[in-house]
């Protein structure tokens, strides 16, 4: 799934900035989420202790990841969950398809899953004649318009009530126009209940996978996750290989910090622990449960001691809610499955740092993301590291697309810069010209315009510091 051509974040970001409706929708939502999160952590000591504990739990899990995955797989198998492995999204898609075909399943109802977005599963299944319907209300709303999520927790956050009201009245059969949120919700409930009832298969993601018990944990508020996993006769779960933790009691603090960081809730409506298909004498639940464990670049991140921290992420979205860039342009401008700071870190590692070079620079490195991250991922440091990877081929690096973000112009500019600085005589001549004629250089000159497009042109002082030192006296002490 590698993009061939460089995708320019600066173009889509500029476009998003000009959309006042989009900016208003995001501003309102993000301000609300920031306040709600803050209210959940009244005691700074408790917050820091919980972050430290969560970070340690995730780091411990990663330290013994291969062993935990094997233990997890063995326990799942013992419980009757069939485990499959996929190196790529293509493999994962084909696995889901073959599991469905083996049961003759034609319709799939989906709970929220970012990994399935990563796989572009819906489009794939539809090309094979299988209906894949999103059932999370936000995902359902964007699927009606053929859009992708603009936020990993609240996928339809870019739309306001009026837009959704118009959309429902046009796209849902027999729906009347209403801006009442309860009525809109009731319309979706009616359509989707019918789908849950009839679906041949249900699909879900996994928030946490527990090695010691072989359990899939799902966090949700709506109940569509439970519907998708318990009503249809077949349940397929997809997860990234980093999701596993050693023990169920390790999940408790991660769950506590996840809901508080994500939506400012002390607890979600449902925390669903699935440890197997319908048991002996059970009267409901799926007859078969399958799990697809996906790599898609994760083992590559794992191999690098610094980039491994990327895999600590529990997908809460707090980094987006607090990001000054994301808040202003929304999720779609990133043209990636994972937007915001987490996306800037993950997407270039999955698709290549060269084609996603621009994304790495779409950050002021202010550090708000790292400050709120529940598992203390040093996002700005990782971005700086990836910026270097994009233009260098360092020995020992295994970053995808390393060095391919280098351009001839940039190379040439740095070479001249270095050449001038290394030769005192040349430097003095260049400085003399810059101080005397720098002001006359037009802001639209090549190279300069890349800088001046969004910034004021720097004007050199009339005389350089060393010239003034010589003229006005002074020592080097």
């Amino acid at each position, binding site marked *: 799934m590698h993009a061939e051509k460089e995708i320019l974040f600066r173009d889509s970001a500029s476009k998003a900035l000009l959309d006042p409706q989009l900016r208003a929708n995001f501003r*309102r939502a993000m301000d609300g989420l920031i306040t709600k999160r803050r209210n959940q952590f009244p005691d700074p000591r408790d917050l820091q202790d919980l972050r430290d504990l969560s970070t340690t739990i995730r780091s411990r899990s990663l330290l013994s990841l291969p062993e935990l995955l094997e233990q997890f797989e063995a326990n799942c198998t013992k419980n009757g969950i069939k485990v499959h492995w996929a190196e790529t999204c293509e493999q994962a898609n084909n696995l889901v398809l073959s599991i469905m075909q083996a049961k003759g399943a034609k319709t799939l109802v989906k709970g929220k899953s970012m990994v399935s977005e990563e796989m572009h599963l819906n489009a794939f299944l539809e090309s094979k004649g299988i209906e894949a319907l999103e*059932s999370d*209300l936000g995902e359902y709303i964007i699927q009606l318009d053929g859009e992708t999520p603009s936020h990993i927790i609240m996928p339809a956050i870019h739309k306001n*009530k009026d837009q959704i009201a118009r959309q429902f009245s046009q796209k849902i059969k027999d729906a009347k126009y209403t801006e009442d*949120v309860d009525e*809109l919700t009731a319309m979706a409930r009616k359509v989707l209940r019918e789908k849950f009832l009839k679906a041949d298969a249900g699909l879900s993601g996994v928030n946490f996978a527990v090695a010691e018990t072989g359990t899939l944990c799902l966090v949700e508020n709506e109940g569509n996750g439970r519907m998708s996993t318990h009503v249809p006769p077949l349940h397929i779960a997809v997860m990234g290989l980093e999701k596993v933790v050693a023990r169920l009691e390790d999940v408790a603090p991660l769950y506590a910090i996840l809901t508080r960081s994500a939506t400012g809730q002390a607890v979600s409506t449902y*925390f669903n622990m699935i440890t197997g298909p319908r048991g002996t004498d059970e009267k409901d639940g799926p007859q078969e449960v399958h799990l697809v464990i996906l790599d898609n670049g994760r083992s590559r991140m794992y191999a690098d001691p610094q980039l491994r921290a990327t895999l600590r992420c529990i997908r809460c979205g707090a980094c987006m809610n607090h990001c000054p860039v994301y808040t202003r342009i929304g999720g779609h401008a990133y043209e990636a499955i994972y937007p915001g700071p987490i996306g800037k870190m993950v997407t270039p590692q999955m698709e290549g740092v060269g084609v996603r070079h621009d994304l790495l620079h779409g950050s002021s490195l202010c550090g708000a993301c790292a400050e709120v991250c529940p598992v203390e991922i040093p996002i700005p440091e990782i971005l700086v590291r990836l910026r270097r990877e994009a233009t260098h081929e360092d020995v020992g690096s295994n970053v995808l697309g390393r060095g391919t973000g280098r351009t001839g112009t940039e190379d040439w500019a740095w070479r001249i810069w270095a050449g001038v600085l290394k030769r005192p005589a040349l430097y003095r001549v260049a400085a003399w010209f810059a101080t005397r004629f720098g002001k006359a250089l037009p802001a639209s000159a090549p190279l300069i315009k890349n800088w001046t497009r969004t910034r004021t042109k720097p004007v050199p002082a009339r005389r350089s510091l060393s010239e003034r030192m010589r003229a006005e006296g002074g020592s080097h002490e």
Partner: protein
Amino acid sequence: MSDARTAILGRLRAAGGAGPLPDLDTAVLERRQWPAAERAERLRKGMEAVHTEFLEATSATWPAVVRAFCDREGLKNLLFGPTCEDGAELARSWAPGGTKLMPYDRPVETFKDELFTGVDAGFTGTVGGVAETGGLLLMPGPAEPRLMSLVPPIHIALLRASTIQDTFWSAVKALGWGRSLPPNALLISGPSKTADIEQTLAYGVHGPKRLIVVLVQDLA
């Protein structure tokens, strides 16, 4: 696909680094404790904040409290598990007429349509509660199927105050869930809800629209 498995695990192993594991400091979880008498109140406050309704009862009165609620709401029927202890007790005291008790005693495939469209409420027990945030712990199984607490528009849950734990963390340990788990176990903190439209809370999106907790005060 075992090829993918071998390749993935091989890459992870080659990355190495399985050094000594850092210690876990769980003090932040341990300090979340309340006297037994305060736990029910805290749980109630947390769950009421997300629209859960409470009915007070004692070990002797709870079946009558459930019945009175059903009559008051004019419920046509109430789905229950006839072979679980609480379900059996409810059935013993259930007077004829009014709300009909409907046993969930056959595979869901035989009455899926009826379950989705013809059932007013479901009654389940719980195996505990969580004081810190509010929440019920359920272990569905053969006697109390999974969909009872999900599909009917009203879920009535029986909670004994003596079973409420401090936190989800302490509950997992007290219930021994770390050692083994049934095919399904869950925590429920309120009726189904969403804030996907403009961050406006709406209740009853896919699961129950109302959650009624019958709280049995059984602390000595």
